[in-house]
């Protein structure tokens, strides 16, 4: 008997349709293909950047040239030819638009299709959106409302122009361009992204969010986000992303930096849904991202929550540097891989200050022929007395052609610290599926239900606006993964 219905079910369920794979046919202005110092000058000129910004880019580029692509992650892909990529693409602004605030209706339409309304009247109150398409931000909503509270929320390009002192002070302070290969690349060619500054004592009245959309073909997306939370402030930030279905792979290499000062708290949530490639593993986004938060002040807190369902390859380790005494770092992750997707994701918690605490909850779900790895580092420095870490890394396998791996690294240099690590690997049981079937729930729905239950602890950490989307996404991603 084929006593494991998961196998056939998995094969069938993995025939999912990517719902965001459409392409908007708009006129686009691009940089010449390939990467040289001229490309960088082109990007900088397009963005009308000051000289210091161009210098920063060029330094990063020259450093990048000395580096080689890292190979330690548990992922496989053909070598990327950086001379085949277009590093800048922007929708052409239509002449007849009357004000600078106006957005091309076609772009509005694109975001509407993605479920993101840029019309403040129609928008869910409570969420401000920065909409980024390819290399540029097309609109940031509710800027006026936020300004009343002293909150700056704008595209990175605007920030370079309007808040150069803040950018100079913080850009690269958490992720220097020397950090790694992809960070150097991003620092050289980054296009747009968001900048948030929450002043002292302000609890940001809206959820802030950025929606990234890759549209143009053969382009890479290199966004850069910087969030600075001053003393006693709070902000919750969400990030979403999608891309059209294409046969060729597309590169996405982003940097996110967060700085939290005394008693500040930043919640950063991601629902990553870049195009994962087709069932045979053709196409899809290569997602190489460096995200790091610095708990600079005492009692500060940074929490990363991520739901990773898209991308052909995900290489991403949102981390916390716990510098301030009593600071707190949290990482909650659900990573789902199906078909031929590969994910190598996790976190780093670097304990520097006294009495710092970190929590890691990672739920990996693999289906199809995919590979899903958790890679995490907990490092406790000698000065971090009485620090604590708790890590829980669970893997759920759907079928027997997929892989789950856990690579926990622990470096404890302080006797008074406590590190706890738990790991489990499980399969969706035939008993659970039959139990659901017997109640009239078909296997596909049952898997969605069981997987969502499995990820509940992490999903509960997402802001309401995101949680529902994320739940649907988990089910959709695994559609066709069981039969």
């Amino acid at each position, binding site marked *: 008997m084929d006593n494991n219905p998961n196998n056939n079910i998995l094969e069938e369920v993995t025939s999912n349709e990517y719902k965001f794979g459409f392409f908007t046919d708009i006129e686009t202005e691009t940089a010449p293909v390939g990467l040289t110092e001229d490309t960088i000058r082109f990007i900088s000129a397009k963005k009308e950047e000051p000289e210091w910004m161009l210098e920063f880019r060029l330094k990063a580029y020259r450093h990048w040239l000395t580096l080689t692509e890292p190979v330690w992650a548990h992922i496989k892909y053909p070598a990327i030819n950086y001379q085949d990529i277009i590093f800048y693409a922007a929708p052409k602004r239509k002449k007849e638009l009357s004000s600078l605030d106006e957005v091309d209706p076609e772009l509005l339409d694109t975001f509407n299709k993605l479920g993101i309304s840029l019309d403040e009247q129609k928008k869910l109150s409570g969420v401000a959106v920065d909409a980024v398409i390819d290399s540029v931000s097309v609109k940031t909503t509710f800027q006026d409302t936020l300004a009343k509270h002293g909150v700056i929320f704008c595209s990175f390009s605007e920030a370079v122009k309007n808040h150069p002192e803040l950018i100079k002070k913080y850009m690269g302070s958490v992720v220097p361009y020397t950090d790694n290969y992809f960070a150097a690349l991003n620092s050289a060619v980054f296009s747009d992204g968001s900048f948030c500054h929450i002043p002292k004592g302000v609890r940001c009245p809206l959820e802030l969010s950025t929606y990234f959309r890759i549209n143009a073909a053969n382009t890479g997306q290199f966004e850069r986000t910087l969030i600075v939370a001053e003393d006693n402030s709070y902000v919750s930030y969400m990030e979403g992303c999608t891309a059209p279905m294409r046969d060729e792979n597309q590169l996405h290499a982003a940097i996110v930096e967060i700085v939290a000062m005394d008693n500040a708290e930043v919640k950063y949530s991601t629902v990553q849904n870049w195009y994962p490639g087709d069932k045979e593993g053709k196409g899809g986004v290569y997602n190489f991202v460096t995200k790091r938060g610095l708990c600079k002040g005492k009692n500060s807190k940074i929490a990363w929550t991520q739901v990773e369902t898209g991308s052909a390859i995900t290489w991403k380790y949102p981390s916390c540097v716990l510098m301030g005494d009593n600071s707190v770092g949290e990482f909650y992750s659900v990573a789902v891989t199906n078909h031929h997707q590969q994910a190598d994701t996790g976190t780093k918690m670097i304990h520097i200050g006294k009495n710092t605490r970190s929590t890691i909850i990672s739920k990996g779900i693999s289906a199809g022929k995919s590979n899903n790895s958790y890679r995490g580092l907990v490092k406790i420095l000698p000065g971090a007395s009485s620090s604590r870490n708790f890590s829980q890394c669970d893997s759920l396998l759907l079928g027997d052609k997929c892989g789950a791996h856990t690579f926990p690294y622990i470096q404890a240099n302080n006797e008074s610290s406590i590190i706890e690590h738990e790991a489990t690997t499980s399969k969706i049981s035939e008993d*659970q599926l*039959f139990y659901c079937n*017997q109640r*009239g729930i078909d296997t596909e*729905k049952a898997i969605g239900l069981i997987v*969502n*239950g499995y990820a*509940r602890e992490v999903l509960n950490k997402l802001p309401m606006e995101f949680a529902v989307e994320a739940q649907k996404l988990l089910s959709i991603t695994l559609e066709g993964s069981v039969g």
Partner: protein
Amino acid sequence: MLLNIKNLHVAIDGKEIIRGLNLGVNKGEVHAIMGPNGTGKSTLAAAITGREGYEVTAGEIWYKGKNIVGWPAEERANEGIFLSFQYPVEIPGVSMTNFMRTAINAQREYRGLAPIPAADFLKMMDEKKRLVEIHEKLTNRSVNEGFSGGEKKKNEIFQMAMLEPTMAILDETDSGLDIDALKVVAKGVNQLRTSENAFIVITHYQRLLDLIVPDFVHVLFDGRIIKSGGRNLALELEEKGYEWIKQEHLI
């Protein structure tokens, strides 16, 4: 006849467990199935409900006039066949409320109905919880997770009450229940009995059949029904055990 099983043979991993079983159930009837451990009672329930791996090698299962052999389990469920599991399964992180709503809506979708409005659903939950006297808080918890043995069994009857099946099979719902819980479960079942539905009650004990009075009692042995009778047969079994029937059967 609501359910008509004819010459059923069921194999697990190529090993024949049910070996030529016949059973007919009419609407409005309660049938008790008794028999020693390991004789195939749960296997029969699994075959009727369409569990994968329980291969029907011969025979037919007629339900509402259709031979349902080969039908997927969820379709049988949506046609009104319900199993109260001998060993209910835990589903971590999925609240009972969410699970029940998903089940009800699956059934409604099958019948071409729109999803149940939230208010109606909550009202229904309240009513049925009261019927089986299950604790308010239990439905906020994950499906069967950390439930006591008795709570799990009550929870099965709660689900039965919610789904209002036509053909309900209770597989040892009484085992693990204390006297009070047994009464509650029996009361629940009796309230759900109508002239339009039927029950198959698998049990080892007469005490359940004192409360849910069967129209027929069958003894399952070695994959076959070897004796059938009225409720008195259960009393006789309680008194004399199975040995005499086995002897009768072997002769």
